[in-house]
């Protein structure tokens, strides 16, 4: 039987760290829960549980550029993103939400979660402004740390994912 080295294994000689070496799911979940309570509402509960995302999804994210480079991405159903935006706006929420309200509110959650993830990573590093739309693609499956939660019965995923492809696999010298 042969095994294929996908380059996903981490080696001590790797110059570039991958995210599971730097942060774990429990830390990310704790950051997300704190952001949720402060931004969405004190009584809002996140259940750490994986659920099937609907077809119509929306992501918000910020990029971290530094010793580790990647994105902190929140993804949920478009309807849930709108519900989240309403929760953030509170009594200031209009009857009909504009797309820019969702971009602003959903992006701000990514900004707060991303800023705190960045603070937990080795620095110095920079943080981009939040973006909302289709999430950046995963470049290296070994450079991802993902947490799945359920909010008001709807799935939300938080993915801290590297922006760089895997390093080439070094072949043994003879």
């Amino acid at each position: 039987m042969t095994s294929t080295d996908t380059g996903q294994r981490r080696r001590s000689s790797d110059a570039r760290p991958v995210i599971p070496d730097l942060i774990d799911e429990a830390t990310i979940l704790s950051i997300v829960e704190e952001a949720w309570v402060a931004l969405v509402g004190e009584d809002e509960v996140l259940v750490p549980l994986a659920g099937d995302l609907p077809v119509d999804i929306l992501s918000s994210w910020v990029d971290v550029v530094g010793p580790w480079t990647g994105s902190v991405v929140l993804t949920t159903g478009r309807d849930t993103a709108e519900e989240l935006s309403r929760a953030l706006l509170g009594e200031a929420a209009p009857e009909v939400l504009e797309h820019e309200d969702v971009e602003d509110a959903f992006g701000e959650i990514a900004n707060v979660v991303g800023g705190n993830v960045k603070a937990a990573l080795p620095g110095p590093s920079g943080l981009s402004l939040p973006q909302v739309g289709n999430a950046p693609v995963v470049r290296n499956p070994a450079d991802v740390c993902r947490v799945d939660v359920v909010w008001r019965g709807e799935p939300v995923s938080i993915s801290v994912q590297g922006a760089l492809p895997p390093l080439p696999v070094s072949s043994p010298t003879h």
Partner: protein
Amino acid sequence: MKILIADDSRVMRQIVIRTLRQAGYDDHDIVEAEDGADALAKVGSENPDLVLSDWNMPNMTGIECLQALRASGSAVPFGFVTSEGSPEMREKAANAGAMFLIAKPFNEDTFKEHLDGVIA
């Protein structure tokens, strides 16, 4: 007193205003700015008693705004309300003349801790 709140997110400006109210600072004039450049202009035109500013904003960042204010001779009390609260950023903020840095997410207790004595 007059408080200038600078953040490119309208939602976050509203959350800051809401939290100020929850912390008991509900009897003050609020002026909003949507980025650092707008904040810099409004410090000149509105003459606020305190600036609460985000760090990461388009056009002009919060730290650039603070540096421009100090370079122009303004001594307006200035504090950051930002999602990035690393020790390096706190040091950078203090060196530029910021009174405090409140990291997001925050609540009314965080505001009271930093603002008691600053807001009359």
